[in-house]
Every structure is written in structure tokens, then in C-alpha cells.
């Protein structure tokens, strides 16, 4: 089949699944609404979650995923065997609608796995392999846009070279409630900075408090 026919077939495919503007936005939890320019995450976008030398990266990624999961969507986590699922479930992530691929294999295989996940679920949290090439990263972002699925990249080491529509980074993080030999970790507050393209071009800074 020539590439023209393929392209037409792909177009026809897209035309058959129209997406309403309101449906193009996936909800986030109330704590994060102020941080995001559209008060939600655009379907098909790539969201980069980082932390600048402070903890809190995983909590932020989970918080973003929880909003999507609570709206009834399926989510997936790839390449993150250490994700604390109890914490995820405590915050409201529906475990029965969460696909886990703890080890997606080498970068080439990982790419195919994530592409399949885009077809299955509405949001994929990916910890990219260290050796992912810029072209592959770009390809994943494009694929996510094609499939109206959110690619959320958890990138502590700032190694993601692909594009990102939103860049959420934790600039400060602190836990409170614990004393010397007494008390408990109770609440977690984070300073978050969100930048990105388009409406998100102007950086937004919010402080978020997550308590038990």
C-alpha cells in the first residue's frame, strides 16, 4: 500500500472518532487546578514532571494521575517498579483501572510498549529509559497526540530530550508532623512551577499541600 493510501486511512480513522473540545480536557484534582492554565490536562499532550534537587517528584506525578483516574479513565505506569501503589490508592487512584508495566525492556521495546499503552488508556506515566534517543522521545510525544492520550514523563535527572507541552517541576518540598521520637509524617507541602507552551508560556507558581 502506498504511503498516500496509508495517510488517507489514518485520516479516515481520525475522522471516525471525533473528540469534543470539552472531552479533550482531562480533569485534575482540586489542589492542582490553579497550577494548570486550562484547569486540566489537554488530551494528547506531553507533561514533564521534574524536581530540582528536592523530593516530591513522584507525589506530583501521582497527584496528576489521580485526577485522571478519578474521572473514570484507565491509566498506566511504565518503567517505574518502585512506585508506591499504596500511596497511589490512598490518594484515590483506582488500582483496578491501572495497568502496570514495571519493566518495559530496552528503549526500542519500551517505545512499542508505550505506543500500545496509548491505544489502551488515557494517560501513561513513563519513567523513560536513560538511553532514550531524542528522536524516539519525539516520536512518543507525537504518538500520544495522535491517540488523544496523555504522556506523562517522570524525569528526575532532566534527561528527557523530547518536547513537552507542560513542564511541572517541584521547586521546594517539605514534610511536617514529625518530631524527634514522636509524631508522624502528616502533611506534605510542595512549591510547584508550571511552564509550557501556548497558554502556559507564562510560568505559574503555586504551593500545594497534600495531607493525610
Amino acid at each position, binding site marked *: 500500500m502506498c504511503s498516500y493510501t496509508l495517510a488517507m486511512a489514518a485520516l479516515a480513522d481520525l475522522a471516525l472518532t471525533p473528540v469534543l473540545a470539552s472531552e479533550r480536557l482531562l480533569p485534575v484534582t482540586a489542589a492542582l487546578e490553579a497550577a494548570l492554565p486550562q484547569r486540566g490536562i489537554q488530551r494528547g499532550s506531553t507533561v514533564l514532571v521534574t524536581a530540582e534537587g528536592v523530593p516530591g517528584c513522584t507525589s506530583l506525578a501521582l497527584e496528576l494521575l489521580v485526577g485522571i483516574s478519578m474521572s473514570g479513565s484507565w491509566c498506566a505506569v511504565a518503567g517505574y517498579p518502585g512506585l508506591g*501503589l499504596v500511596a497511589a490508592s*490512598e490518594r484515590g487512584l483506582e488500582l483496578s483501572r491501572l*495497568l502496570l508495566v514495571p519493566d518495559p525492556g530496552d528503549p526500542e521495546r519500551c517505545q512499542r510498549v508505550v505506543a500500545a499503552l496509548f491505544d489502551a488508556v488515557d494517560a501513561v506515566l513513563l*519513567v523513560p529509559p536513560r538511553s532514550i534517543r531524542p528522536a524516539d522521545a519525539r516520536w512518543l510525544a507525537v504518538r500520544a497526540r495522535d491517540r488523544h492520550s496523555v504522556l506523562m514523563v517522570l524525569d528526575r535527572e532532566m534527561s528527557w530530550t523530547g518536547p513537552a507541552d507542560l513542564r511541572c517541576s517541584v521547586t521546594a518540598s517539605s514534610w511536617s508532623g514529625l518530631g*524527634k521520637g514522636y509524631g508522624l509524617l502528616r502533611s506534605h507541602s510542595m512549591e510547584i512551577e508550571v511552564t509550557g507552551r501556548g497558554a502556559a508560556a507564562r510560568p505559574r507558581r503555586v504551593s500545594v499541600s497534600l495531607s493525610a
Partner: protein
Amino acid sequence: MRTLVTWCPDWPLVAAGLDGVPAAVLRANRVVATSAPARREGVRLRQRRREAEAICPGIVIVPEDPVRDLRAFEPVVAAVGELTPLVELTRPGVCSLPVRGPARYFGGEEALACRLRDVVGKVSRQRARIGIADSAFAARLAARHDLIVPAGETAGWLARLPVGVLGPPELVELLERLGLHRVGDFTALDEATVGSRFGSEGVRAHRMGRGFDTEVLSLNDPPPDMTVSRELEEPVDQVDVVAFLAAGLAEELVGRLAPHGLACTRLLVEAATEHGEELSRWWRAEQPFTQRAMVDRVRWQLEGWLSAGPGAPGAPTSGVMSIRLSAGEVIPEEGRQLGIFGEPAEVRQRVERQVARIQSLLGHEAVGTAVAVGARGPAEQVCFVPFGETREEPASVRHPWPGRLPSPAPAVVYPVRLSVAVLGADGSEVGVTGRGRCTAEPAVVDLGGVGRAGNGGSGGGGGERRHGGGRRSVVGWAGPWPAEERWWDPHTARRRARLQVQLEDGSAHVLVLEGGRWRLEATYD
């Protein structure tokens, strides 16, 4: 449930009065039943009429007629019903009853079997074969061998039989190609594995092979919505009309169960006549009743009652006024169920398709979902379940788990736990006493190799490498939470103690002490 099955061999021939001569019963031009003399000549099931006649010239051929068979069997059922009211028909020639009560009454299973053999012999002039075993399925097989399988030995007895007895031909063929020739070979497999490979049909066969009854949701007293009935305006005694009405009712009943994902395995057919006679009969299915199978049973039963001549035992003396069908036992019919999570089925199907793609890339165990289970450690409180498998009901989440860390849970739980050192202000190792106290106040945590060693291997990514390692002073700590697990079992017993620490760089961790060594278990990230 311990069950007795009475089987009169070659019943269709007996009913036709042809059991003493070479004869065969035909359905769609194929032999479906033969008499003993015909078998001696070499007539076999599934032969064509022409083949049978070539092998055995002079063979008497009759068409299949379940109503005739049932009518002839009615007196037998009625006679067995004198001994116990709980008798259920499986098909003409085969009926079953629960053993427990009658065996006690008649003084043992052996005595009950003798008694039944007498009763059936007197009515039908046939020697019935009787099988008793721990499940209805096993009892049917035991009846072929005229055998009483002692209580508790059913699984062992079934294990020696060829796998073909389990039923579904496609499944059996597949199992044989996989080299599983005996039931025991199949039942030795793990149920979860069978479920993921062969689906609900496989799980059902697996249960049957282990001597369990298929899962039963309600045993007795079917709830009202599993009953359908029709009152007739005037008594009807034409067989055709009644059968037609009953067929409609059977469809209604199947249609009522299907939306709940249920199928019926035991059916009560009842009819009341103008003279106030009440006829009722239990039917038991070998496989869950399909709509077609249920309609057939109901039609046979009603035709059997109505076409028995006047004066025949149990025959009604007037027209039928009402018909009622009740589902006595229902089992989950997974073949037609909608989305498990109540979501539109397409979403689930889409997920399943893509998961299958990923599984083909990475292997079956690589994709899964998590299930919350009751446990103490943050890593043990969820259990990874490969997609498509079901886990046995885990230890309950709701039970108290003393020693469990309070909420919030840590966001990162390390798959590989690295050793750390917890030191007091004077530089000595901190331990935990038998009474659950720290031996010294933790002042410094040495994260040592964390962050440098190749933790987690390739693709391990995640949170392992972030902390630069080295010594950090403790700004806050709580605990320890001692957890003594499975102390009653010397092989799996574990004693651990957990500590929550907050370090000078703002990070917070869970450290766990076991066997004198502290390890980094989780991080509040």
C-alpha cells in the same frame, strides 16, 4: 455435595422395548444409542444408518424420541421419589439425588444403593448402575462403573481417568495436544494459570476435575425473580399447545438470568391441573442450560406428563391450568458478562487487546494490575497480578494489622532494598529492643551506597538513584513500629521493626530493621 446418580444403561432402547434385540436409535442419520446385542455386532455411536445396517443386517432402527423415553422413565422417577423427594432428572435414564439424608435414613450408602437398585429393578425390570461421589459430576462418572467412591477420595479417583471425561471437546483436544492425558495432569496445574490460559470454561473443568461442584450461588429456595409462570384462561390438554407455552416461558427465564450474568443448572418444572393436581419435577443440567436445552427439557417434561395415557401413575386427569418454571441453582455465566468494572465493554476490550500486544512483546507476567491485600509493610500491601489472572481472595485489608505504618504511605517503595546505617549521637549503631524501643536516639543516617550502586538494574529507573548517598543528620524520627509476622510458623516467621525518619535535606524515609541490619525500604517522595 455428595451425590448419588442412578443410571439405566441404554434407556432409549429400553423405552422403545428393543433392548433385547439388535437395535439403534438415530438422530440426524447418526446412531445416538445402541442396544447390547447391536454393540456385540459392532454397531457404534455416531455411525451412519447405512454403516450400522451394513455391520448388523436386520438391526431395528428407531428415531430418537425424548418424550417416549421420558414417559417410560417417569414411573422409575416416581418410585425413586418414594424413597426421597429430592430426586432430580438429568435426562431420561439418569437421575440423581443428594446422598446425605437418605443414606442416614436407610443405614449407609451401600444400603441406599441396594435399596435403589431393588426399586428401579422392580419398576423397570432393568439393573440400574449406581454411582456415589462427592460431586454431581464425579457421581455421573462413578455410575458408569457402578461404583461408590468413598468420601474424600473423589479427587484421587478422578485423577486417574482420561481427560476426555471433562467434557468440552475443544478443551479436551487442546489438553491432549499439550500432553495432559489424565484428569490428574490437568488438575495438578495451578487454578490461576488455568484461568489465564483456558478462561472460565477451563476453570470450571478444573474445579470439576478436583471433585468440586460448579460454583453455586444459591442452593435452595430460588428468589422470586428466578421464577416464571403462566396462568391459562381455560384448561388445556393438547400437548402441542402446552409445550408451546412452556417453550416461551423457558425463553423468558433464560432472558431474565442472562442480564445478571447467570446461567441455570437446576430447573424446576411445575404444572397445576384443573382438578388441583400438582405435578413437579427437578431437572439437573450436565452443562449449564442454554436456552435451547431448557426449552427441550420443559417440552419433554410436559409432553411426558400429558401424553401418558389416563390411569398411568402420576398422569394428570384434566387439562393444565398453570405452568411454572424456577431456576433452582444458578452459576456465574462468564461468557456473556458485561464489563467487570461496570464500564462499557468496549473500553475493557480495547485494554485487553493492547495488553495482549504488550504481553506478546514482553511475556505474560510483564503487564498487570495491582490488588490491595492486607499486610504490614508498604511493599506487601499491594500484590501485582498479571493481567487476566485472578487471585484467590487475599488476606483481608480490613483486618487490623498491628505494626502497620499509618497513612500517608510512601510514594516510592524500593524493589531492591539497600543497606543503610542508623547511628546514634555517639556514633554507635541504633538497635531495637525486644520491647520495641530504640536503643539510642537516631541522629545520623548513613545512606552509604544508595545512589552509587547499580540499584535496580536496567530499566530500573525510578527513584533509586537520586540521593547522593553519604551521611545525613536526622531532624525528625518516629517509631519504631515492630511487626512480628507469622510467629506461629518457624519457616515464614519474620520479625521486623520500621522507623520513619526525616533527614536534613528534607527527604523522609522508611527504614526497616531485620536480622540486625537496617535497610532503606521506602521514601516519601
